[in-house]
């Protein structure tokens, strides 16, 4: 009877795609910790910003924002970054904008410190707003067989992915003075193949 049930379940399960649905197996939370730099502040890179100037915060600058993402080392995660392509200043009823281009890099080789991770960071090509990567870099090209299932007494290995956020602004010549700002949203989840 039981064998019949199991056999029936296997027959009726849809065929699994090539990519593993890690979210099904995950039971651990993803923890994001922000470094000492809380904000992507272009005045930290250039104290005086005038109309007509361009300011670039590079990966190597201390004003780049750093996140440490701790997750199950055997899984893949997807990181999605959304931001408006401008910083805004509201003056009365009018909105003034400064074009803003974010950039980001990541390190998933198990680096123990932020400084170490920064030296080995992999930049993401411009135009991409999301990446799917192993939490801990795998040498094989294809996803490995399903990871060790959660069971009593098992402590899943963890690893930390470092995410670096930076960018550039191009201030129009006659920009009104004031504080221009925008939000950058970062969403991290265990990779799923469910569309």
């Amino acid at each position, binding site marked *: 009877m039981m064998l019949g*049930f199991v056999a*029936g*379940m296997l027959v*009726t*399960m849809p065929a699994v795609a090539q990519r593993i*649905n890690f*979210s*099904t*197996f*995950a*039971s*651990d*939370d*993803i*923890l*994001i910790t*922000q470094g000492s730099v*809380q*904000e*992507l*502040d*272009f*005045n930290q890179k250039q*104290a*005086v*910003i*005038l*109309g007509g100037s361009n*300011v670039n915060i590079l990966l190597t600058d201390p004003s780049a*924002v750093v*996140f440490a*993402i701790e*997750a199950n080392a055997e899984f893949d995660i997807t990181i999605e970054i959304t*931001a408006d392509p401008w*910083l805004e*200043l509201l003056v009365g009823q009018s909105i003034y904008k*400064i074009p*803003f281009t*974010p950039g980001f890099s990541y390190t998933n080789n198990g680096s123990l410190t932020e400084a170490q991770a920064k030296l080995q960071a992999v930049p993401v090509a411009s135009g991409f707003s999301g990446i799917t990567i192993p939490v801990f870099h795998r040498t094989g090209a294809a996803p490995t067989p399903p990871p060790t299932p959660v069971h009593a007494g098992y402590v899943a290995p963890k690893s930390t992915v470092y995410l670096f*956020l930076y*960018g550039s*602004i191009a*201030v129009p010549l006659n*920009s*009104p*003075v*004031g504080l*221009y*700002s*925008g*939000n*950058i*949203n*970062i*969403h*991290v*989840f*265990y990779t*799923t193949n*469910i569309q």
Partner: protein
Amino acid sequence: MKEPAVLHTRPDIADCVEKWQWLRLFWIFTVLFISYFAGQAQTTSISIKASATVIDKKEIELITLNDLQIDESMADNGIIFVSSKLDAHAGKMLVKGRSGDQVLLNFQQELILYNTTGNGTLLFTYNICGYNADNQRAAEIYNTGEQKVTLSQTGEFYIWIGGRIDISSALPGHYDGEFTIEIEYVE
């Protein structure tokens, strides 16, 4: 009397198929149910701000980065000396303005410090140095209370403040004072 016959019929094939399909649907929904909630639990989001303050070409700012730190433990034969050029305890200020322009610095060379917890005053003699980048060791020492300097390409100029004070006759207490510097564009 003959007992009525009990008819034993074979299980109806159609009934078995129908029950099997319901069981199969139950398992499918159970798996999907578990998958749905398992997938929803492990997501994390964070939001940060990006910002830039744009100033007018005519504006100029003076920002205190570090206060001058003086402590009794620093005294040598009753004299405390903080070198503006060499000492990490020196005060530090940043002038921000229009790139490449000249500005005139006016500052006091002596200041009376007052005891905030008792009686007595102290005389503090300042020594000032400055440079157009954040490099204290490269700074030029200024010997007068007025100095014309040129802002860097990024519109910045750094000033370090040290000084000398004789506490050999000072009464116990906490002495406080404020260093004042004036800056204006040179036309």
